[in-house]
């Protein structure tokens, strides 16, 4: 499946979802002007990626490395988590982990990660970044 690559802008994050490298990361700042327009194609890509994994066995890490995201983006990040959850529940051979990166002094990003953790069955690993 073709990789999804979106370059960062001043108000939207960088996304690299590359199945051939088994590397999946979303990073930077997320407050896009049109949050729906930005995230809908990302959700669609994850859905198609899930379908492409049928019958496979592999371990996948999704890295979330946000410097900041606004409240409208939070809604879509939750939808991304939910899609990832679907991939795991529908594919017995797929083992997913979410790596939640946060600046060690940034309690708000950490708490946001804990909130997402509470509503998904995917295991979370919290990775502090020294400030």
């Amino acid at each position, binding site marked *: 499946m073709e990789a999804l690559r979106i370059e960062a802008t*001043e*108000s939207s994050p960088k996304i690299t979802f590359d199945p051939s490298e088994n590397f999946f990361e979303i990073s930077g700042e997320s*407050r896009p*002007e*049109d*949050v*729906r327009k930005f995230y809908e194609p990302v959700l669609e890509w994850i859905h198609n990626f899930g379908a492409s994994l049928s019958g496979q066995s592999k371990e996948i890490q999704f890295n979330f490395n946000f410097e*900041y995201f*606004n*409240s*409208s983006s*939070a*809604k*879509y990040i*939750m939808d991304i988590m939910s899609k990832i959850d679907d991939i795991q529940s529908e594919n017995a051979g797929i083992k997913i982990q979410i790596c939640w990166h946060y*600046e060690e*002094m*940034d*309690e*708000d990003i950490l*708490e946001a990660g804990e*909130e997402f953790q*509470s*509503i998904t069955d995917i295991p979370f690993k919290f990775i502090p970044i020294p*400030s």
Partner: protein
Amino acid sequence: MDIEFKKEYPNLRDIVYPVYKHMESKGILAAYHGGFNQAVINMLLRQARLDMQKRNIERRVFKKTYSILVECLENILKHTVTTTEIQKDGIVVLSTDQTTIKIMVGNLIKKEEQEILEKKISYVNSLDQEALKKAHLERLLEGEISTKGGAGLGIIEIAMKSKNKIDCFFSDYCDNLVFFGLQTTISNT
């Protein structure tokens, strides 16, 4: 070429200088009044970042202030009434003293929205941090993205991140419009 210096500049003396002195005396880091669009928000955020760095504001406080400021500015963009005379016009003031950073914003809303907003802010102010987290999670799970692009989480996030009550102010502006002011305080210690 000779430059002619006038002795009297009434606008500079009566408007610009008093505003400058007033802002300085109130610890105002930045203030903007005018039209709002994404480019203006980006510019204000860039400048706020620089202003806070210049004052060596601790990174933890800076990140809190930045994220609350984004929600406040986006609220202006999403909710200001637009008429032929008023094009998403708003005001934002960022001030600091030894112990706090204050974000103050204002914009015009429809009169019928005042009661809804008052109730919403009063409800959020009645919640402690644990109850705010619960309300945030409920809203995250139930809420839809509105046609204006909001998730209905902004006011809750402002209260959660600032860890302080939200102050609000309403003043009749004209027939069917009300000025809505909001202030949030972030501890700088």
